[in-house]
């Protein structure tokens, strides 16, 4: 128990140092698209790559409807993060810095390519690695990414018919 605790603390300190490095390397290379409050252009691409994996089997089959749904989910993801507390938004920012900084992404997420260039299988494996990680921070990041995408989709009325939810009842 004691050893595990120490390893965890060491991982935490190493993690903090890496995050500082990531923030330094990850200078904004592109201005955020005007409509977004949290995500920058790279963040939009990263979330856009995660959505079809997290929502596989749930998105519309029709190609055009599917593209529109993914865009809706990315926009709702952005709105949701903008509604979190400032410290949590900063943590989410650090998470994306991590995913956007090549050496860290490889070391910590095991992804050789950026998310938008990874295959769905590689992204799925990355998510499972973080889900089952010995580090609580990675398990928490897995949960944050998947839940924000799931909330963004199932809050959207276009998702309701396929799951048999009739929508809210009429009142008054």
């Amino acid at each position, binding site marked *: 128990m004691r050893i595990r605790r120490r390893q965890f603390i060491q991982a935490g300190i190493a993690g903090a140092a890496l995050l500082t490095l990531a923030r330094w390397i990850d200078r904004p290379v592109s201005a955020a698209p005007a409509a977004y409050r949290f995500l920058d252009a790279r963040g939009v691409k990263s979330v856009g790559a995660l959505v079809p994996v997290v929502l596989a089997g749930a998105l519309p089959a029709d190609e055009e409807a599917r593209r529109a749904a993914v865009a809706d989910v990315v926009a709702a993801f952005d709105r949701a993060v903008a509604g979190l507390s400032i410290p949590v938004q900063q943590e989410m920012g650090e998470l994306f810095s991590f995913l956007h900084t090549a050496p860290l992404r490889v070391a910590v997420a095991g992804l050789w390519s950026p998310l938008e260039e990874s295959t769905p299988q590689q992204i799925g494996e990355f998510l499972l690695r973080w889900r089952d990680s010995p580090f*609580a921070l990675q398990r928490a990041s897995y*949960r944050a990414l998947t839940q924000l995408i799931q909330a963004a989709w199932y809050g959207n009325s276009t998702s309701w018919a396929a799951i048999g939810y009739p929508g809210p009842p009429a009142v008054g």
Partner: protein
Amino acid sequence: MAVRDPIREGLAAGWKVTDAATLERDLELETDVVVIGSGAGGGVSAESLAAAGLDVVIVEEGPLASSTDFRMREREAYPQLYQESSARQTTDKSITILQGRCVGGGTTVNWTSSFRTPARTLAYWKETAGLKRTGAHDLDPWFARMEERLAIAPWAVAPNENNDVLRRGCAKLGYAHGAIARNVKGCANLGYCGMGCPINAKQSMLVTTIPAALSRGARLVHRARVTRLVIEGDRVVACEAAGVAGNGAKPTDTRIRIRARHYVLAAGGIGSPAILIRSDAPDPNGLTGRRTFLHPTVISAAVMPQRVDGHAGAPQSIYSDHFIENAPLDGRAGFKLESGPTHPVLTGITLPGFGEDHAGWMKKFPNVQVVIALLRDGFHRESRGGRVMLASDGTPMLDYSMPAYLWEGVRRAYLAMAEIQFAAGAQTVMPVHENAKGYANWKEARDGIDALPMRALAARIVSAHVMGGCAMGPEERTGVVDEDGRHYHLRNLSVHDGSVFPTSIAANPQLSIYALAARSSAALAKTLR
């Protein structure tokens, strides 16, 4: 027929309400009493103090939303009405905390379940925490008064199928169970209590005590976050607040300063200790923000052969205390069993996994049934609760780690819920845990649950009840406040909310908060008149 909106009518009739987010210049107010927070504690206090003829200002961090705004859509309701868009979490992210952040606080968005404080909890407070006037039966007249005020009565309508599965499973296994009392009048059994009642049937603070206080001339400043209390010696001399912009994350530039004879903190189990810590309030015994309890809650999802439609109908109408009543306080962790509603977002983020597995469960959405187990924390020596601290920007954080004692309870709760769901005819049961899968029968579930790792961020844990942090105690060595909620070191400060509980309640806490706030407010009014 259009639904009457008592808030919009009151505003039209001239209630004194200020939206601090849109203030163009700083605001200074003077009053007899400022009540910080408008939930169960603040609402009851505001009505009681205003009725005693005192001038009252209520300050609320969240917006004044009312039935016209309550459109039963999760993507609107969660960011609008909950702390941190309903994604508030403990510091390690392992427990999600559902807390109201709107006028009416948690009472605007809770599921209406109303229980008197269990006799065993009160007996423990008397015998172990040393309280003298808050033991079994001491609060009976206050429970009765608040039950009448808020139309609290056992729900006589048949439970929805989601709750009836819990009832049938318990009946089959011989577990004691009962109908939940609810604070409703003219309830249409819609099932959207968690998004604000669209027909004003729920007797929340929003439609009862707060309108009563405002009609007596009380003032309400909403979308205002109290930054600190200004303290001089043993007195509070002012309450400072800032406007809160749109989604609640950032303060605006306008400043509000309220001077009062007396200050009532009712910002809840996280908010009240956080204000005291930000204010450097005297705390010689290091008690403020300590022993914070959550009723850590775990979930079991089932697929039934029949439609359940757990989004429709009163969300909670059946409970079982079998695993509370039969668990001694110094023995293994007890847990209360209830149901939880299934709306698409809530269900989507509750079911673990992603991709095809997750989508497969969502396709069975109409047949999904949910049982929840609320663990009783704070009674056993190993269960010492969490601690409220401040982030670098002054916002509160709650550090809460689950002791082995509670993890053992989590495993037994998963087992108990699965057994009940199978007894009621479930086809598949899945504990809401990252490493669980759907189990096809009780034996498979038992083996699967026995093998699940019990650790943070594997089990999915939620809390809708934050309690403690400003505990009542018989003396300043053991309490932040006395049994009337009076702060031991600040003469004109009281705490009237769930943060005064010395332990968790071991039941949904709203009625416990109402009763204590009513008693404390009556005592306070006498000293101020």
